[in-house]
Structure formats: C-alpha cells, structure tokens
C-alpha cells in the first residue's frame, strides 16, 4: 500500500520521539497532542528538515529517509509540501508568482507555471488576488494562497501544521471548508497537526494522539474523540474523563469512589467520560436521586460561548482526580450561586450521562 | 538657560585645549618645525637650567601649519621655521628680521645595508629602482626636484609622499629601494635606514630661520633663547642632530 509510512526515533535531552505512522494514499490523518509531545519534531523529520537518529520514511514507496542505508533526500527532492501556521508567502512576489514558485523551481516554463498557478488559485477561491503582493492580503487570503502554493508543487505528502491557528475566528471555518474541499477533490495524502478537535473532525479520516513522544491513541476520528481514553484527548474533545477500574455499577476510582454508570468491563482499566453540559453545580449537597456527587472547589470560571465553564479543583484532602473536571452553566446560574474561585461546591452528574470505555494501554512504538 | 550652560561648558573645554594655565613663574612659548624636535628639546632643558622659574613650552608641527596658527593670532614668543617661505608668510608679525641659524641638506636613504646598491642620485632614475620622494608641493619635495635638476637626473618616483616621515616609513618597511630625505631626518631614523650622501645635495640647501615675534609676551627671554640657539651650545646640539651651520 502506498501513502506515507514512517518509523521515526529522535532522542533529545529529556525527550524521545518514537513513533510509527502509516497514512494510506489519499487519507488525511490528524495528529493531536499537547505542547512538547513531539508533533513538530515529527513534521520536521518528514519534511527533511531534521535527520532522525533511527528511522525510515517512505512516501508512495519512494524512500525519503532511511538511517539504515544512509538515504536522506534533501527537502527539495522529497515531494513533501508544508502549510504552516503562518502563510510565509514570499513578500517580494505576487500571489500568482508565489504559487508558480514550485512549478518553476522544478523546471516548468514561465507560461506553463503561471497556468498551473492560476488553476490552483481558482481551486482555493483566491483567483482574484493573483496580482496582489502578500502585504495586501488578509490572514485568511494569504493562507489560501499558501495552500495553493503547496498544492501546485504536487507533493506526494502534504503536511498541515496548525494551519488555522493564526487566523481570525471568522476566517477559520471558511478556510477549513476550503481545505476540506480541496483535499477531498485531489485525493491528497495529508498529515494534519492541530489542537482543535473541530479541525480533526472536519478534515481527518483518522486521529493519532501523541503524548510524550509516543502514539497513545489511534483510530477513526469520531470514535477517538467521542470515546477518549486519555485526559488529553478528553480535554481537546471538551469532555470530562475519570480513570479507574471497570465495575458492574460503573467505574471505581483508585481511592474507592464509585462513578455510577452503565456497567464497565469488570476489573479492567477503564475511563468514565461525560460532557461538561451534563454536570450540575450545587452549593449544598443534592439528595435522593441516582446521581454522582463529587465535592470540589471552584478553580476558575471561563467564558465559553453562551455559557460559563466552571473548572473544578479537589477539596483539601479530597481525591485528586476531581481536579480538572468541568461544568458548563449559564451566566445566570453562576450569578445565582455566587460562584467565584475558592467557592466549595458539589458537582452532580446523572449516571445515564456517564459512559465507561475500556482503557487498554494503546499500542505505541 | 540650559542651552547657555551647554555652550559655556563647550567654550571652557575649547579654551582648555588652546592654552595652558600660567601658574608658577614665566612661560616662554616656542613654535618650532617638527624636524627640530630632538635638538630643541635638548636646548629646552639647558635654557630652563639657566633660567630658574622659566618654563619653555615647545610646539612642534609642520612649518606651514605653525605659520598658519601664527597668522590666526596664536600666542608665541619665538618661531623657528624649516624654510624661508613659511617665515616670509608671517613677516609682518616679526619684531625683527629673521636670521638663519642652521641649514639642512638632502641625503639618499635606503633600507639597512643598501640592498639595491645605490651610490648616487643617478641610480634613482634607473629602471627597476623603486624610489619614494616628497611631493613637489611640499618643501622637501621642492628641494628634491631642485637637486635632481642640478644633477641632470629625471626621478621616476613610485610615490610622492606628503612628508619626510612618510618617505622614511616606506624605506624602513623595505617597500622602496631609495628615498630622499634631510640629513637630520636620516639621523633621527637611526639604524632603521642607511644614508648615502650625494654631491648635488649642496645645490638644494634648506635654510632654517628663527625670529622673535612682535607680540611676544616674554620678549627678553625670547631674545635670550634665540641667542642660545645661535651660540656655541646650540650649534653643537644642532650638529649632533645632522644640521649644518649657516
């Protein structure tokens, strides 16, 4: 099977990246991971900007890097395109000349290169900016041109490194739509690094979660995000996650607390997952219903669209896993309860709103 | 107000650069050509020994620069020039006509040991001999031209330098086979160069005149200093430095 196949090991002072990544031809895979998890290092190795200690990278069965045989194709000969957070359009060239840069660099005549460039500018909806210099483009327009430029070089693999992170909130959905449409239309093999689960949901067929230099989750996007097995994945997916051991009544945390839910895998490592919107907050203990109630204190209040996200912390002496749980309340509710950081509260969630997933240690390395 | 302070401070700094303080006895200011540095410095000590409480201040520079300073009202008692032309420029400022107290002749200088085997002025016109002289616009260059004309030699200089020191630098560095400088300069250069005398040097003798200025603050001391220079001790000191008697 062609596409990307990479086994990479890079040792740094206090960090080792050690991953195997397979992307089928035409597939789009998202890489999620906290800062310092090794995402940038992985991209640099694939783009040929960094030589791994050990590893082999092939794209469409062409060997780009192989430390065993000493193969290390330079960036210019790898056919790996890069769309970064900043558009990095060459400031001295027009949008058209920027897009035509790749074809010209690989030997196309000027007329032919311009033709290719116009095609790709039209493809990303930026045909009207052809004659503008980058300084005269908005962030979103520049990123479109940068996408066209990356595609015009006909890369065998396209790397998208947080491509929407520097854009205005309004520009992000539009450009995300453009990338989705173009990737689907061209059947390009692509690896997308992002923080935003929406990017992954909209663009990726599959998600890899990278933590501390290892792949800890790997699976279809929707499945991974709706059934997170690590705290990081849960947080990017906007979900609460409590880990422990499966129990016929739900999940048992290490300190013995029962999180009531549908039955979990008995005796197996498992995680309980629930949405912040399903968490209610009380200042006095609620009584007499089949609910989970956890004592906590308010750590922070964050505006979150129309709601306010209440971040909880453990009570002094209470179980530590409570820290980081979130509840979404209306601003009115926050005002009624007079919540502020430090307020003791009780978090309540119905057993029916809690899902328990097995948390088998994900295959890595 | 602030501006005034700045200007006043600047004025003080400038004033400080121009003149020294007048504390402790009398000061005699002598403007002398740079080539007189060694001999006049020796005479300064002798004069001060004979005149307790008197401080002789020597200002050495090129004669034309000194003449220009005098024309611009610099305060001095005595002016000793390396040529008559510059003395004539300040004729109106003199208390009495200038008198010649020494003469200086040209000599050929070569790198130590005379590697190019230069024997006379004629060698300086030869192909393959790198010669460095003073530019004809400055006094030592004018004298060089005069001597060469008298010898019927056409000099073919590789460079026409600004002053004698520049000629000596090139010869000392071995970058010239021969140069033309004054005997006193060759003497001051010591072992750094070898001097080769030539008879035509007598055709371009340079006179050194000395005079007391009309505006001299210490006219009596000035007269005594001139007498010292022209007397037996002064002449001996000048001869040691390579000058000839008038």
């Amino acid at each position, binding site marked *: 099977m062609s596409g990307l196949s990479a086994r990479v090991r890079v040792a740094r002072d206090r960090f080792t990246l050690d991953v195997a990544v397979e992307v089928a031809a035409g597939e789009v895979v998202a890489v999620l991971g906290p800062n310092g998890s090794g995402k940038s290092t992985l991209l640099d190795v694939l*783009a*040929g*900007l960094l030589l791994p200690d050990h590893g082999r990278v092939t794209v469409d069965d062409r060997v780009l890097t192989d430390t065993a045989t000493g193969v290390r194709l*330079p*960036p*210019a*000969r*790898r*056919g*790996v*395109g*890069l769309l*970064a957070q*900043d558009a*990095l359009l*060459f*400031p*001295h*060239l027009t949008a058209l000349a920027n897009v035509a*840069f*790749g074809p010209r*660099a*690989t030997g196309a005549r000027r007329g032919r290169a311009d033709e290719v460039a116009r095609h790709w500018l039209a493809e990303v909806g930026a045909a009207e900016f052809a004659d503008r210099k980058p300084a005269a483009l908005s962030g979103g327009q520049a990123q479109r041109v940068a996408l066209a*430029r*990356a595609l015009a*070089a006909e*890369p065998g693999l396209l790397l998208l490194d947080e491509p929407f992170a520097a854009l205005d909130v309004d520009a992000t959905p539009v450009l995300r739509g453009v990338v989705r449409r173009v990737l689907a239309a061209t059947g390009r093999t692509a690896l997308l690094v992002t923080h935003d689960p929406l990017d992954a949901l909209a663009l990726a067929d599959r998600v890899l979660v990278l933590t501390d230099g290892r792949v800890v989750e790997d699976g279809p996007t929707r499945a991974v995000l709706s059934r997170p097995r690590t705290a990081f994945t849960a947080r990017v997916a906007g979900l609460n996650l409590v880990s422990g051991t499966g129990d016929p009544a739900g999940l048992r945390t290490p300190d013995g607390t029962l999180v009531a839910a549908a039955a979990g895998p008995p005796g197996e490592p498992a995680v309980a997952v629930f949405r912040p919107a399903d968490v209610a907050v009380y200042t006095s203990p609620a009584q007499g219903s089949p609910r989970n109630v956890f004592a906590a204190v308010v750590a922070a209040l964050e505006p979150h669209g129309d709601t306010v996200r209440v971040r909880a912390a453990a009570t002094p002496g209470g179980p530590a896993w409570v820290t980081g749980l979130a509840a979404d309340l209306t601003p009115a509710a926050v005002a009624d309860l007079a919540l502020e950081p430090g307020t003791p509260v009780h978090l309540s969630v119905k057993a029916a709103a809690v899902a328990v997933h097995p948390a088998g240690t994900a295959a890595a390395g | 107000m*602030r*501006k005034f302070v*700045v200007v006043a401070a600047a004025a003080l700094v400038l004033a400080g650069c121009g003149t020294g303080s007048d504390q402790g006895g009398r000061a005699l200011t002598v403007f002398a050509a740079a080539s007189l540095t060694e001999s006049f410095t020796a005479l300064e000590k002798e004069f001060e020994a004979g005149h307790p409480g008197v401080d002789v201040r020597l200002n050495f520079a*090129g004669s*034309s620069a000194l003449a220009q300073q005098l024309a611009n009202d610099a305060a001095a008692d005595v002016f000793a020039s390396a040529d008559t032309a510059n003395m004539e420029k300040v004729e109106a400022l003199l208390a009495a006509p200038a008198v010649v107290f020494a003469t200086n002749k040209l000599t050929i200088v070569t790198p130590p040991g005379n590697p190019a085997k230069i024997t006379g002025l004629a060698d300086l016109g030869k192909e393959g001999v*790198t010669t*460095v002289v003073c*530019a004809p*616009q*400055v006094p030592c260059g004018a004298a060089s031209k005069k001597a060469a004309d008298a010898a019927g030699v056409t000099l073919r*200089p*590789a*460079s*026409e*330098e*600004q002053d004698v020191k*520049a000629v000596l*630098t*090139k010869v000392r*560095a*071995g*970058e010239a086979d021969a140069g033309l400088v004054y005997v006193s300069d060759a003497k001051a250069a010591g072992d750094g160069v070898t001097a080769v005398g030539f008879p035509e040097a007598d055709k371009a003798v340079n006179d050194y005149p000395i005079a007391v200025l009309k505006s001299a603050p210490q006219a009596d001391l000035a007269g005594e200093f001139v007498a010292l220079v022209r007397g037996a001790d002064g002449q001996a000191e000048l001869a040691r430095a390579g000058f000839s008697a008038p």
Partner: protein
Amino acid sequence: MSTRDRRVRTGLPVLLWVPAAVALALVVLPVVGLVARSDLSSLPARISSPGAVAALGLSLRTAALSTVLCLLLGGPLAVVLARSRVPGVRVLRAVVLLPLVLPPVVGGLALLYLLGRGGLLGSHLPGVRIPYTTAAVVIAQVFVAMPFLVVGLEGALRTAGERYEAVAATLGARPWTVFRRVTVPLVLPALGSGLVLSFARALGEFGATITFAGSLEGVTRTLPLQVYLLAETDVDGAVALSLLLVVVAVAVIAVARPRALRGQR
C-alpha cells in the same frame, strides 16, 4: 489627509532636543564652514585642474571597483556568517569587524607587511609589485569598506530567518534557486544600503591608501589624498576639492539611499 497626521503622538522629551541639535550642528556646521571658506569664483578653475580631474577620475573608478569586489566577496561572506553552523563562526563574525575599529593607517601598515615586498605573502610573489599600484588602492578600499556591507547584510539575513528558505525547499527549489529567488530578494534593501555605505567609505578612504599604496598622480593619488596634499600648500585648492568630495558624497546618498530605505519597512 491621512489619519496619521492627526494622531496625537506621545510627547518627545524636551531634554532630547538639545543634544540632538548639538549633534546635528556638529554634522552640518563644518560643511557650512567649508562652503563659507571657499572662493566660489575660482571654484571651476580649481576643480578642473589636471590634478583634480585625475584624482576625481581615479577615486570614482577605484571606489566603483571596490564596491563590486565588496559585493562579490563580502556578500557570500555575509551569507556564510549568517547561515553556517560551523563552529567558530562567532569568532569570525568578530574578526570581520576588525577594519571598522582599526585606525586606517594601521590597516595600511598591515597590508604593507602582508603584500609588500618583504611581506608574508608579498615575499612569495616575485615579479609582482602591489604597493604603489592602483590595485593597492582598491585593496585598501575593500579592506576598510567591506565590513559595512558584511555587517548590514548579515544582520538582514539573520532577521529574515530561514523559514522562507525552508518553505522554498519544500516546494522543490534546490539551494541555488532558493538563494537566487528567495534569499537575495529578501535582503535586497539591506544589500542596497550596504553597497552605498561601502562606496562612500571607499570614496573617502585615506589612511590605509596613503600608507599602503602611496601617492602618485593618476595612479594612486585619489581625491582625499589630493586634498591632503593641497592643504599643505594651496588651502583654497584643498577647500575646492573638499567641496567636490562633499558634492559627490551627497549625490551618492541622495540617489541611492532613499531607494534602499523605501524597501526596508
């Protein structure tokens, strides 16, 4: 018309105006003094004297050649200093600044003891005489002027960074294409101002030239050397040529400098 004109600026401390005015006066007043001292009626005759014409022609030719050499040699040096990861580059970067801090006369002596007859290199070049030639003038000028180009260009290269170059490489461009189509255009403004500064420095070069190359009309006596020689004997002539030098310098700055600045932003 533009809104910028109406915007209220944060005030400039009055205290800065006084030294700023003094600094400006220090630059402008000497030139005014030069103009005041000159005899304008005899100016044309003095400037068109054979010695002056020869010196001006020699100065323009040598300074132009020196500037080209600064570009051909100093440009690549700046790229290496900015991009190379070879250990010791930091030391080299400091060494390149040496001609900026050395008195030019010292530079001239150093060149003499390297390329002169008895010099380190010169003694191995029998039959080749470098001092007293126009080539020596150009070498002295390159020596003193090149740091201006290297320092400015290297700074611009470091500021521009390598990210654009990395992107160009991922688009399939080989190193030479990247250099030609990305690196050079990015630093073009800095290159322009560096060349102007180098030319101006070469034009005004005096100490290293007179020490290393000597002074002979039409061969090594450039305009500054001619001025220095005339100052000894013919002050009016020296003043006239000084004015000529000022005019040439101002013309160079006026023609090239704004263009170099415009692109910089």
